[in-house]
């Protein structure tokens, strides 16, 4: 949907494995696609096992777009494995 001004480019920071990564995505991008991109080609198949969590809020719904989920420009999000914790 190039040229659709309703969906602005969002400049996000996603923290994965203890490292912040800049990620640029349009507001109409699905959360699950942002997770795939952040995980990269080696781990994108595991995207369903991860939560994308904005500051001070519950994990985003993967099937929502960033706009629908209320993600603001310049947000910092934590990308966490759902079953993280004790082994």
């Amino acid at each position, binding site marked *: 949907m190039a040229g659709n001004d309703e969906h602005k480019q969002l400049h996000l*920071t996603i923290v994965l494995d203890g490292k912040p990564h800049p990620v640029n995505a349009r507001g109409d991008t699905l959360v699950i696609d942002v997770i795939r991109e952040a995980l990269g080609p080696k781990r994108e198949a595991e995207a369903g096992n991860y939560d994308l*969590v904005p500051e001070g809020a519950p994990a985003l719904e993967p099937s929502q777009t960033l706009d629908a989920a209320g993600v603001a420009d310049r947000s910092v999000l934590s990308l966490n494995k759902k079953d993280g914790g004790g082994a």
Partner: protein
Amino acid sequence: MIVDPAVARRKFERDVRPLVEHPDAFARIGIRPLFVAFQTVRVALHWPSREIDLGLELSAPDWDYRPPTVDWVKLDGAPWAAGEAPSGDGFQEPNPNTRRPDRPWFCFRGSLEFHEYAGHSAEAWWPIHADERYRILGFIQNVAAVLARK
């Protein structure tokens, strides 16, 4: 110490650099750096359900040949009372059969207490030591995520 301190320091400082260079980004996901200097990292982790901050301290004198010891602490580094620490989901009570007979310990890959636990003889540190999920900052992010869900 097992590792040449100069080598351990160089690797430690390389690994914790994102926390030092981007403290605001970490703070916005509930990880507030309090003290970072070889061989110790201490952060405040937010525990939303209790509306308090807990100190988490990692000490890694032999980084990265051995993983860090990990403790809940007060924000000034003083020991945290065992009975007040989170429990479950890998947050373990003191156990006389571990390195931590009198303190809570972390049953998480990437902590010395996990890898040296007798029941984890098949869970050696070395095969996973290069995996960022289990190194110092990946470990801290994982603990913060689990704490936020409790």
